[in-house]
């Protein structure tokens, strides 16, 4: 374990302020060696700035950066064993693909530069174009050259700044799988910056969700999705139905009841933050069922919208107090409803989560851009 954690990257109260405003508020984060880590957040939340500080391209205004036991905060970019895949690729246009990939090895006087470069070009399936100029390649190929150029140096940490942002949807999906495969093959620490929550969730072992220069929550994709700790995370990672509720006193060790619009509903105690009275009770649309499910949580409403999308159908169910709940049902033949029908919506207590009601229920919802 001590061997394992030798190359962990730790950020300690890392801060960056520009003249008029703070792009990254004191950030504490430890990224285990060899993990595929995603930094997820809407545009402008400080992801690139964080990455550039790790690379040494931006000077922090406070805090420390460590890799294992060595503090690299004061070292220059060219002295750090950290490499970046730039969003714009930043390939050297006057050099061949092979020379681009060999650039880092040559700076370190590596005797096997050519063999290593060719090997990595094979890994990213670009062996055939080694002698071409970057401008002669397609966007997807350039992206892989940029990846190869960074990978070949076997850095302690590989930084990827929205590496797939410029690719079309199909190629992006393909490259997500490809990147994941390569990371598992080489075993290096990858920090992948993205504003695409689906991309982060499919690829990363753990995700740090950032918002307005602060880290909202850190966790593995399933935990972030099932147990968001803020309305921002609940809305930015997928959709959430949030009901205004008040915690009833008492309850058991496992369960707590909350009162939402004169209905008592149950939620697992572990999904309730300590010491709050007013909460948003959240349930994911696919956790809701049309019809009774025998559990304690059910609400009655009227179907106002039905949209069929093949695998599933999305319903909008209006509650007596006017709020519309989104319900997603698998098209497995059961639980159909028609427009205008009065229905019961139910869910299991452990599928709910409660969030402090002092937060904006809409936080993060408007920032999600759909890539389909």
């Amino acid at each position, binding site marked *: 374990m001590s061997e394992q954690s030798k190359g962990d990257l730790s950020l300690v109260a890392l801060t960056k302020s520009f003249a008029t405003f703070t792009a990254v508020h004191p950030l504490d984060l430890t990224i285990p060696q060899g993990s595929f880590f995603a930094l997820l957040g809407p545009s402008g939340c400080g992801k690139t700035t964080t990455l550039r500080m790790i690379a040494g391209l931006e000077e922090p205004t406070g805090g420390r950066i460590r890799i294992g036991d060595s503090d690299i905060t004061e070292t220059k*970019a*060219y002295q750090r064993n*950290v*490499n970046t895949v730039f969003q*714009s690729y*930043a390939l*050297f246009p*006057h050099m061949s693909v092979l020379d681009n990939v060999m650039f*880092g090895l040559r700076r370190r006087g590596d005797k096997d530069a050519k063999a290593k470069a060719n090997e990595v070009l094979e890994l990213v399936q670009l062996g055939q174009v080694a002698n071409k100029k970057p401008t002669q390649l397609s966007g997807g190929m350039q992206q892989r050259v940029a990846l190869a150029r960074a990978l070949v*140096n076997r850095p302690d940490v590989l930084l990827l700044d929205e590496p797939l942002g410029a690719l079309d949807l199909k190629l992006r999906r393909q490259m997500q799988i490809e990147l994941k495969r390569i990371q598992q093959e080489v075993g290096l620490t990858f920090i992948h910056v993205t504003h695409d929550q689906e991309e982060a969730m499919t690829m990363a072992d753990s995700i740090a969700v950032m918002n307005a220069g602060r880290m909202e929550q850190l966790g593995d994709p399933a935990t972030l999705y099932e147990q968001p700790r803020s309305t921002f995370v609940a809305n930015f990672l997928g959709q959430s139905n949030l009901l205004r509720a008040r915690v009833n006193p008492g309850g058991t060790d496992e369960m707590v009841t909350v009162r939402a619009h004169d209905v008592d509903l149950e939620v697992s105690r572990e999904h309730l933050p300590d010491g709050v009275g007013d909460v948003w009770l959240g349930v994911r649309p696919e956790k809701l069922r049309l019809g009774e499910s025998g559990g304690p949580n059910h609400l009655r409403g009227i179907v106002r919208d039905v949209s069929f999308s093949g695998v599933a159908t999305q319903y909008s169910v209006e509650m007596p107090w006017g709020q519309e709940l989104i319900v997603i049902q698998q098209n497995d033949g059961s639980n159909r409803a028609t427009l205008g029908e009065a229905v019961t919506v139910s869910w299991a207590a452990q599928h709910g989560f409660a969030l402090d009601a002092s937060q904006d229920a809409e936080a993060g919802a408007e920032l999600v851009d759909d890539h389909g």
Partner: protein
Amino acid sequence: MSWIKRHLITFAAIAVLIYMLVPNVIVAAFSFNDPKGKYNYNFNEFSTAAWTNPCGAQGICESLGLSLQIGVIASLAATALGTMIAFALGRYRFRGRSATNLLIFMPMATPEVVMGSSLLTLFLMLGVPSGRTAILIAHIMFCVSFVVVAVKARVATLDPKLEEAAADLGANPTQTFMRVTLPLAAPGIAAGALLAFSLSFDDYIITNFNASPSSITFPMYVWGASARGVPVQVYVIGTVMFLLALIVVMTGQLISSRRNRQVA
């Protein structure tokens, strides 16, 4: 008829090309003339005399040598200075940047007669003797502007991310400059250097103000000789200079097209 219509652009291009090249062709042709009398205005008889003895006219090769020497030194100095200025202006924000940007244009905008005479005044005041040194200083001064303009245009198109990428890959600032920045700026620098050389080699007005009897440049020689009849050797040198320029430009074209079209 429609054939003519279709090739109208080709005809126009050929006509323009002929218009531009006629003087050079005439010069080349008359370099093989054996003129009757002192004026080389009528083709008299074919002769290679001037080609076999290019220094045959008195003082011509001394003036050519001086012009080449001044041209090379001035263009090298102006290129070095101008490149540094262009990078400073293109890359950094500093006090007086916009003023410098404006002042750089002044030598290009000032009439040469004005600049020549004011330089002479300045040199007299400072006690710089007329002659080769004064000419060199003057040439470097006006060449710098052109180099700055050529290099700055190139620097503006360089992606600063490329230098960050080089640093990210372990290149220190010197290596980054030598391996990434300089090669990418090279076409602009080369263009600036060539421009500086031809401007210096060609200059008559400013040079004339600051020359001494012992520093007769080639343009001054030709001007002086034209009153008495230009020796055929001048036509020979003119033809050679034209061919050299042609070779340099064509080589440049070849290199850049090969760069862009290199196939595995």
